[in-house]
């Protein structure tokens, strides 16, 4: 780990072995390309398409894909599915990404503290992690989402509050193994503060595993948002998200299957891409890992 970080500081990063290994990971590259395309489509799509995502046209209800300029068809209110899909993508990707940032932050703080301090603080923190992991995540998320106000911000917080444990576990294990290394002891001898040693000396050496875990957390957060929005407790209409676009789709499965198939495919593509990227980063950064 230290070797890689030192290495990449000396050379330009795109020439480093890490970058080369990542570029040789075809699936990860595919994932990067797909995410880039999806993000571009979601950012630019609504400006390019001829219809607004909220424009209701009752004469054009349930139009199948490729009817006129409705490239993906329309929904039960005659709104253009493509326009809604891209607007929804903004929300879903943003919620997934923000939830990842927040949960990585919580997980890293808990993990560093538990791993460095150890003792009863470490034990209590890690037992709390186990406690959270004992709940089936969706039960916890739904109970919280139903209890609190369902704004996109709150959904993000709820998802983050129930997905920081993996990162905490990874960071704790990493920090615990780094704690006894010479450079940390040297830091202690120099009289550096505990906070300085934890965050300035140890943490930079645990960045690899954190990046990998964070990438996989984006995938999981997008899925979780889709689950709870599908069940009606996530992002609330008229704000579209990939999950809530599927919310009413089941009843039209026989007459308008594209309502269910298209948003679900978007979720699958986004989540698969992030999982591919995470897998590539794990190989490139040489993080030993489990296969989840």
């Amino acid at each position, binding site marked *: 780990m230290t070797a890689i970080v030192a290495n990449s500081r000396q050379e330009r990063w795109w020439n480093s072995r890490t970058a080369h290994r990542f570029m040789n990971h075809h699936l990860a590259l595919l994932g990067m390309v797909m995410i880039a395309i999806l993000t571009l489509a979601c950012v630019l799509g609504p400006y390019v398409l001829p219809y607004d995502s909220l424009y209701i046209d009752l004469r054009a209800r349930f139009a199948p894909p490729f009817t006129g300029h409705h490239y993906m068809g329309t929904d039960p209110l005659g709104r253009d599915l493509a326009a809604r899909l891209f607007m929804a993508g903004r929300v879903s990707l943003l919620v997934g990404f923000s939830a990842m940032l927040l949960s990585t932050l919580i997980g890293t703080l808990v993990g560093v503290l538990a791993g460095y301090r150890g003792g009863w603080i470490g034990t209590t923190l890690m*037992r709390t992690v186990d*406690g959270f992991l004992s709940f089936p995540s969706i039960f916890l998320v739904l109970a919280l989402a139903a*209890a609190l106000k369902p704004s996109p911000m709150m959904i993000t917080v709820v998802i983050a509050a129930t997905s920081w444990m993996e990162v905490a576990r990874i960071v704790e294990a990493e920090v615990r193994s780094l704690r006894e290394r010479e450079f940390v002891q040297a830091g202690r001898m120099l009289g550096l503060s505990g906070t300085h040693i934890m965050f300035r000396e140890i943490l930079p050496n645990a960045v690899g595993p954190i990046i990998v875990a964070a990438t996989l957390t984006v995938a999981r957060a997008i899925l979780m948002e889709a*689950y709870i929005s599908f069940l009606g407790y996530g992002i609330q209409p008229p704000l579209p998200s990939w999950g809530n676009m599927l919310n009413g789709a089941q009843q039209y499965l026989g007459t308008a299957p594209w309502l*269910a*198939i298209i948003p*679900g495919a978007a979720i699958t593509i986004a989540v698969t891409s992030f999982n591919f990227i995470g897998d590539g980063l794990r190989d490139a950064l040489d993080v030993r890992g489990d296969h989840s």
Partner: protein
Amino acid sequence: MRGFLLNRLSQSLVLLLIVSVIGFVVLNLIPGGPLAQFGLDPSMTQDDLNRLKEQLGLNRPLWMQYLDWAWRLVQGDWGHSFRDGAPVLDVIGRHLVATLLLMGSSTVIAIAVGTWIGIRGATHRYSVFDYLATVGAMVALSIPTFWFGLVGIYVFSLRLGWLPAGNMYTIGDGSVLNHIHHLIMPSIVLALVHVAIWSRYMRTATLDVISQEFVKTARAKGLSERRILMKHVVGNALLPMITLAGMQLPSVLTGALVTETVFTWPGMGRLFLDSLGYSDYPVVMGLLMFSAILVVLCNLIADIVVAIIDPRIRLS
């Protein structure tokens, strides 16, 4: 063995304690807290609410309320459903069988298919099969369970008409065959993610076992590859999978909730969503605690089973 058991049991007790604290925090986050039921009733005045608060001891310090709540949990007094006044544990019990049936059959599918894929991937490492299984597992992990269910319904119920689109049985036909017919699609949908996870772990476990000395010895004895695989490798590789099965339980329960919703399967997951819809918080809280306790207990049982089979673990 006794030391191991005591150690593991005390760990589980501590975990249950923490789980109950988390549950209590969630309970108090619900608007109106434990009084949410009465807050919705327009004939209740603020005075009535305050009196109830007094009577139920809700103005005592939080830690006393927690002890009281936890003690009632231990005694099996989990409160009553707002909807029909039945005790929460009875309500959960009524939905337990359907969920266990679904989870059980999907676990059998996941273990059977996942084990096969994992072992084949390990014995044919870097083959086309292994590569496809690796990529396939990552894609399977990324498919939202409810969407897989919807696509399944579209293809096999609406287009082909082979399988029913929902419910546990046809009304008026309670035969075993009819139940199985309804069970096929939900259990396959629920199994998908776990086939992926199981096959990845099984591949790693098989590779670990294959590289060990006793497999070399078996080869040196001149046993056929097939016999080595069946007699020496599979059994040893499956051992750590018992622990994995316990660890996967929360994710199986999560999947079950979604699958039950899509297939209108009358299990715990549907009960949870229905209760949320009716703001039936005693049942919601009951299911939350019940599922977490179930997870802690199953993990405990899995660890004990592994320790009984494998002496290395209980001695270390």
